[in-house]
């Protein structure tokens, strides 16, 4: 009997261990294998990181030619000291993996369509969309084309080797805690994952297209009204490059062949970047600077996340000493400065993603008509290894245009991101950080392909410049706004704009260059483009920078943190005079407002609600069509229309028997929102920074912060300034920077989100350029990598 009890207990013991070794879902929430996760010796406790627990590390690797020293300064920023570039990039790969391995893994699994492999079937739909958009295919094309540059590719090989050196020497006990929680292990890095990261960046920044929505709108509204609601260009905008432009012999003025829809098309499900992502950069020459030398400022705005998008790093070799931020997974410094120059980027936003109709010749959709001939489609079988499921297969059809993203709609995607690289694009930020003059910088960054960026530059020879840099397709007028006719290759892009004809300016007489995601050029530019642009922030930057005065570093900080909204100023200038006297009394909050989107102000949420309600009434022809995928008219279109006409037919609300004018709508929309409870912007916004997994435990608390997508401080709920940098050039560059997060990717580290409070207050860290290891005053610890056989 006793033995039977023993065996029963043994059985229960084994069952309990099995339970603790398995994943479970309780109340819809997945649980990790609790035994692995909670035991003190290899579980999550091993991720504890006490501030005084860092000790020096000595490593040995045959991958480095000479000793490399990595010194982590008091802000946990690694300073790499190497004798040559490849060793430095090996160390860069190593430290990035050291601090951010999980982030790097997930951010490349996402474009690869491999999240369901580790996170389960819930992510399969997302993965399929990513593969059908061709991101994995694009990475394959990139890596294949990179082979043309074997000598240069050795730099990426070194970077990849550094990441893998870290992974190979990582014991399961020291896996980042997210791996333990989600129960999977890191896999080896490769150059393809670098390409995937570039493609993910392109998806965020060069994924704009509204072809289906615009085509539907054209069908719904007709040509004349379509031009009113969706004009291509805001005449009030100040473009990035005002011209004059290089004149062309043959300006391409032919109208594109646009496919007229017979039926309304459904929206294609595709992951999109959030609306209102807004970055700024500007550089002012010494003549406008209090220091007498150029100042450069850059604040890229992105969807914020923890761990932070950026990683601060310094790299020194005998040839250069650079400091800045890097995008995890790509070698080099993307935004930063060295002893002689400073550089940065904002997004350009041209539409390089177009849909073309496909006429299949057979039921199985194996061939389609192109240039009058039946053309075979390439069938690509995508295989998904889904956690907890059998292998899932999906066939994607590729045409000469590109992939069929959604099998229910016969449209093929022509996306620049799919193209092979004709230049060593992977070297852009490696070579860029080593430059000393603008000519060198233009040559080094001329390799960049996509997503096109406004590359800004300043140096201590008093040169400033800005180039819209990247591969830009040559389009006929209007091409890419709507769906194109895919029956003929003549209807597609006609090559690419030669790089020297990309919009650019160098040392302009006005004494500054500036970009804030607005239109790249005026309509005088000989090539057609459309895209995702935002003009208000650019106008704000120009209104300050064009003043006849000199600017200090403090002025630059104030400008980056400016919450002033020209949109609100313009809109209220029209709206308030139209209010009836009874409403006007209740609008004192708005009439006394200074148009600053400050966290403690109550006027901004009221204005936003009012304007949104008004837009719903003005564009009821659009918003009432809930079954058709239609684009939202731009805010500037609404404001310009209100300025130019107070009784336009669009003001008439179709659902009423009356004929409304603007004054009617202004008062009705105000009455609809004024009685709602009103809180401060900070309380309304509920700004926060989520972890990549969206787990609240790893995410920030609510942040009381101002800003709006139309102000230079374009802080929204979870989208905002991901890195603010200001560099005063000179003999010794004086630099400042800040980003919302911390250097470490470990949620248990004191350096995980230690900078959020300072960032939210608009504060900056001083960034000294430590050209010598001895100049780092209070290092936390150091890693030495030697090559000792």
């Amino acid at each position, binding site marked *: 009997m*006793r*033995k039977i*009890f*023993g*065996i029963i*207990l*043994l059985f*229960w*013991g*084994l069952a*309990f*261990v099995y339970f*603790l*070794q398995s994943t479970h879902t309780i109340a819809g929430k997945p649980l990790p294998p*609790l*035994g*692995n996760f*909670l*035991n*003190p*010796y*290899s*579980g*999550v*406790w*091993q*991720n*504890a*990181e*006490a*501030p005084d*627990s860092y000790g020096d590390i000595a490593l040995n690797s045959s991958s480095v030619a000479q000793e490399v020293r990595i010194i982590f300064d008091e802000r946990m920023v690694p300073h790499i000291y190497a004798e040559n570039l490849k060793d430095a990039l090996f160390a860069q790969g190593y430290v990035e993996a050291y601090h951010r391995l999980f982030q790097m893994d997930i951010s490349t699994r996402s474009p690869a369509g491999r999240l369901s492999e580790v996170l389960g079937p819930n992510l399969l739909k997302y993965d399929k969309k990513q593969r059908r958009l061709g991101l994995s295919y694009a990475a394959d094309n990139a890596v294949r084309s990179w082979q043309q540059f074997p000598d240069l590719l050795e730099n990426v090989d070194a970077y990849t080797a550094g990441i893998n050196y870290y992974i190979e020497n990582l014991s399961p006990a020291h896996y980042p*805690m997210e791996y333990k*929680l989600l129960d999977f292990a890191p896999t080896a890095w490769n150059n393809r994952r670098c390409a995937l990261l570039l493609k993910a960046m392109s998806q965020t920044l060069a994924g704009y297209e509204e072809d289906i929505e615009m085509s539907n709108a054209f069908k719904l509204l007709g040509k004349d009204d379509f031009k009113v609601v969706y004009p291509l260009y805001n005449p009030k905008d100040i473009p990035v490059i005002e011209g004059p432009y290089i004149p062309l012999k043959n300006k391409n003025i032919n109208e594109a062949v646009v496919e007229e829809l017979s039926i309304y098309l459904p929206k294609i499900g595709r992951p999109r970047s959030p609306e209102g992502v807004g970055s700024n950069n500007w550089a002012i020459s010494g003549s406008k600077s209090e220091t007498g030398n150029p100042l450069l400022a850059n604040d890229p705005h992105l969807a914020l996340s923890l761990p932070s998008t950026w990683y601060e790093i310094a790299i020194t070799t005998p040839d250069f000493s650079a400091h800045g931020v890097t995008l995890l997974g790509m070698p080099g410094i993307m935004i930063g400065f060295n002893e002689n120059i400073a550089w940065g980027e904002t997004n350009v936003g041209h539409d390089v993603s177009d849909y073309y109709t496909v006429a299949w010749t057979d039921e199985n959709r194996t061939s389609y008509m192109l240039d009058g001939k039946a053309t075979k489609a390439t069938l690509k079988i995508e295989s998904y290894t889904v956690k907890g499921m059998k292998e899932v297969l999906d066939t994607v059809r590729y045409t000469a245009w590109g992939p069929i993203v959604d099998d229910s709609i016969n449209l093929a995607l022509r996306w620049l991101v799919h193209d092979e690289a004709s230049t060593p694009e992977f070297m852009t930020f490696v070579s860029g950080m080593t430059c000393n003059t603008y000519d060198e910088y233009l040559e080094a960054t001329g390799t960049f392909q996509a997503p096109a960026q406004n590359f800004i530059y300043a140096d201590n020879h008093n040169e400033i410049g800005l180039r819209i840099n990247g591969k830009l397709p040559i389009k006929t007028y209007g091409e890419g706004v709507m769906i194109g006719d895919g029956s003929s290759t003549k209807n597609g892009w006609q090559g690419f704009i030669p790089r020297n004809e990309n919009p650019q300016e160098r040392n302009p007489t006005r004494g500054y260059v500036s970009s804030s995601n607005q239109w790249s050029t005026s309509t005088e530019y000989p090539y057609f483009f459309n895209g995702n642009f935002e003009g208000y922030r650019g106008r704000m930057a120009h209104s300050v920078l064009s003043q006849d005065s000199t600017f200090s570093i403090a002025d630059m900080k104030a400008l980056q943190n400016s919450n002033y909204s020209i949109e609100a100023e313009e809109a209220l200038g029209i709206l308030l005079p139209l209010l009836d006297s009874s409403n006007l009394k209740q609008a004192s909050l708005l009439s006394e407002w200074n148009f600053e989107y400050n966290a403690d102000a109550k006027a901004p949420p009221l204005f936003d609600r009012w304007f949104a309600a008004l837009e719903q009434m003005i564009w009821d022809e659009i918003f009432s069509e809930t079954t058709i995928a239609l684009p939202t008219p731009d805010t500037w279109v609404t404001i310009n229309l209100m300025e130019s006409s107070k009784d336009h037919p669009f003001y008439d609300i179709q659902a009423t028997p009356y004929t409304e004018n603007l004054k009617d709508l202004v008062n009705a929309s105000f009455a609809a929102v004024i009685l709602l409870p009103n809180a401060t912007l900070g309380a309304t916004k509920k700004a926060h920074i989520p972890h990549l997994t969206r*787990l*609240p*435990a*790893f995410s920030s608390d609510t942040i009381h912060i101002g800003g709006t997508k139309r102000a230079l401080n374009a802080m929204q709920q979870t989208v905002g300034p991901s890195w603010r940098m200001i560099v005063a050039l000179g003999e010794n560059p004086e630099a400042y920077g800040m980003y919302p997060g911390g250097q470490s990717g470990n*949620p*248990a*580290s*004191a350096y995980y989100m230690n900078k959020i409070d300072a960032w939210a207050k608009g504060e900056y860290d001083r960034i000294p350029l430590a050209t010598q290891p001895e100049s780092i005053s209070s290092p936390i610890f150091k890693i030495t990598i030697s090559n000792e056989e």
Partner: protein
Amino acid sequence: MKNSIVFLFLFTATILCSFVFPWWIIAPLTMAFTYATRPSATAGFTVPFLAIFLAWALSIYFIDNGSVQTLLGQLFRIPAFMTPLVASLLGGFVAGLFGCAGSLIRPKKSL
């Protein structure tokens, strides 16, 4: 006295073995030890339970500076101070089950 020796041995062996083997090494370890030492069924459960509970709790106390238990508290929505106890209870319970099974499975000495 015997129970104290069992306790000390399991306490020490758990810490030493766990750096090399997976956490569940405590299962065969405790079972083998109670099988060999033949404690009573009650002691077969309680002594391994206490030994592993304490070994885990003390290990966590020395490893964690409080940052992990704070995160776990938020993750599992329980007070942070309870998370090391929950973890240690799991380890202790596994040890107790196998310890008791080991002591019961071994036939009693015939008189």
